[in-house]
């Protein structure tokens, strides 16, 4: 099923009515920036390497997940360093998955370094899960009736409206909008 792109709006100004159906079906999706932790990037540069640029990914805010997770293929692509393993409860029992160190920026919060669990997420329509360990660092307000949610932290806040079409972003100079490309989401 094709989902409309969400828009992430920096600021705290309500611009339009959200889309209740889109938020319910797609979940609370935000754009995050992923990269090597700063210290690791510096270490790589000092050795003549290239730590790579930050990667913008689609993340699902998931209060049902205890820990942040990243798609395994994306972790490999970014060259993230594995620093451990985590045990994960699934339908087939407990299994072991890699833990990587990453720098995550989302909703005004920068986590550097942060533990992220490697997981096969790409088929889900997003590449990152922001679980309760991330939510400990911020404030999430989910307004299902309005089809919107706010994610705030670090002295700033994001207002996120599902379905940002028609927001008239060009007329609003107070916000910076990041349009996520249209993508498919399969559950």
């Amino acid at each position: 099923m094709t989902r409309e792109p969400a828009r992430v709006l920096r600021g705290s100004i309500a611009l339009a009515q959200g889309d209740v159906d889109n938020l319910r079906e797609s979940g609370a999706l935000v754009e995050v920036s992923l990269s090597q932790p700063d210290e690791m990037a510096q270490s790589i540069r000092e050795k003549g390497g290239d730590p790579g640029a930050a990667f913008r990914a689609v993340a699902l805010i998931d209060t049902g997940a205890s820990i942040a997770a990243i798609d395994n293929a994306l972790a490999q692509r970014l060259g993230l360093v594995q620093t451990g393993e985590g045990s994960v409860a699934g339908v087939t029992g407990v299994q072991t998955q890699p833990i990587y160190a990453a720098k995550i920026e989302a909703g005004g919060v920068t986590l550097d370094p942060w533990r992220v669990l490697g997981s096969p997420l790409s088929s889900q329509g997003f590449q990152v899960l922001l679980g309760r360990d991330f939510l400990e660092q911020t404030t999430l307000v989910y307004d299902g009736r309005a089809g919107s949610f706010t994610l705030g932290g670090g002295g700033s806040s994001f207002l996120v409206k599902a379905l940002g079409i028609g927001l008239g972003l060009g007329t609003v100079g107070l916000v910076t909008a990041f349009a996520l490309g249209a993508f498919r989401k399969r559950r």
Partner: protein
Amino acid sequence: MALEKELATYRLLRDTLLRDWAGKYALIKGDHLENVYDTYAAAFGAGTRLFGNSGFLVKRIVDPEPIETGVPG
């Protein structure tokens, strides 16, 4: 398996670490316990300075081991 040797080292030292350093983070490279730190960030930073991106284990010293939930496996 990545970090196999480091994880074996942790298992070997586990009881001692739990007795003396429960709740902290062990930095292990190969069969050597480098040090113990208060936070993941501190242990990761030390590991990065010492070993770069060559791979090292940062392990929280806890018992029982946490089981994460809600993440696809």
